[in-house]
């Protein structure tokens, strides 16, 4: 958050890179293997987000207190996501979602 202006050309370059990444992830999403293409989509989005935060939001010259605030928010975001998804993923037996009221096919023994 310094006062001397950085070079506008750099900012335009970063903008161009993010647009390029949009095109890349658009193309990648047409891949056959949806799990891989999903991971790629999230990965490229993370790169774009880091570019925006580092250059556009001038995290580069920010003081430590600002960085701690941003990092704190991000950490808790990941914490909520991580532990909630772990719960759903590790339920024993596989989460049996049945429409209500229950339809038990004949002969089904749990």
């Amino acid at each position: 958050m310094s006062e001397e202006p950085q070079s506008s050309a750099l900012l335009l370059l970063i903008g161009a890179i993010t647009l390029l990444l949009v095109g890349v992830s658009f193309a990648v999403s047409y891949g056959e293997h949806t799990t891989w293409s999903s991971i790629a989509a999230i990965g490229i989005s993370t790169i774009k987000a880091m570019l925006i935060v580092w250059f556009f939001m001038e995290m580069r010259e920010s003081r430590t207190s600002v960085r701690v605030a941003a990092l704190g928010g991000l950490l808790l975001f990941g914490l909520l996501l991580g532990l909630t998804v772990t719960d759903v993923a590790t339920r024993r037996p596989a989460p049996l979602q049945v429409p209500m009221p229950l339809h038990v096919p004949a002969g089904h023994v749990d």
Partner: protein
Amino acid sequence: MYEPELELHFEDLEKQRHAARFGMWIFLASELLIFAALFALYFAYRVHYPDIFVEGVGHNAKVIGTVNTAILLVGSTAVAVAVNELRRNRTRLGAALLALCALAAVVFLLLKSWEYAKHFHDGIRPGGAGHFFAEHPEPGWPLFFTLYFAMTGLHAIHVAVGGVIVGWLAWWVARDGVGRAGAYRVELGALYWHFVDTVWVFLWAMFYLMGKHG
């Protein structure tokens, strides 16, 4: 030429500027956590119904989503350069770029409302109402689309607010001839817009890319 007045209880301008920026970043952290609850629901339900989510993404208009992402990124770049130019006292160029970003917000909202209309036309309405869900009775379908409407709807509200802020800044910069001294106030608006753009980058991936293509 705009000169910010020193609030009585701050010792000097630098401390006042840092207080504003730091307060803005804390506010953005709390905004991020508003989205956290919805992101948690999305990924948890994606684990519950992986194939429905993969197929559901196919029903979203991938091209419009991508165009929208590009629009927001252009807006972000414009705002960043605008703040930079204002530090060089180039008021007119700064105001123009801010106006461009406000325009980007308007175009984004138009495309988004067109997309919603298309969904309503296809019989997809939030809460699992609409004939689409009669044809796809498996549980999970209503969830995917309700989450889609909730998350993109909440984000659209943030884009609207961001557009208003940037639009007001453009008008204020042009009217008061804001230069280097007032740049830090424009910066706050820019921070908010960049945050909105970052959230969309992930929403775009989750609802338009992570699944079968339409």
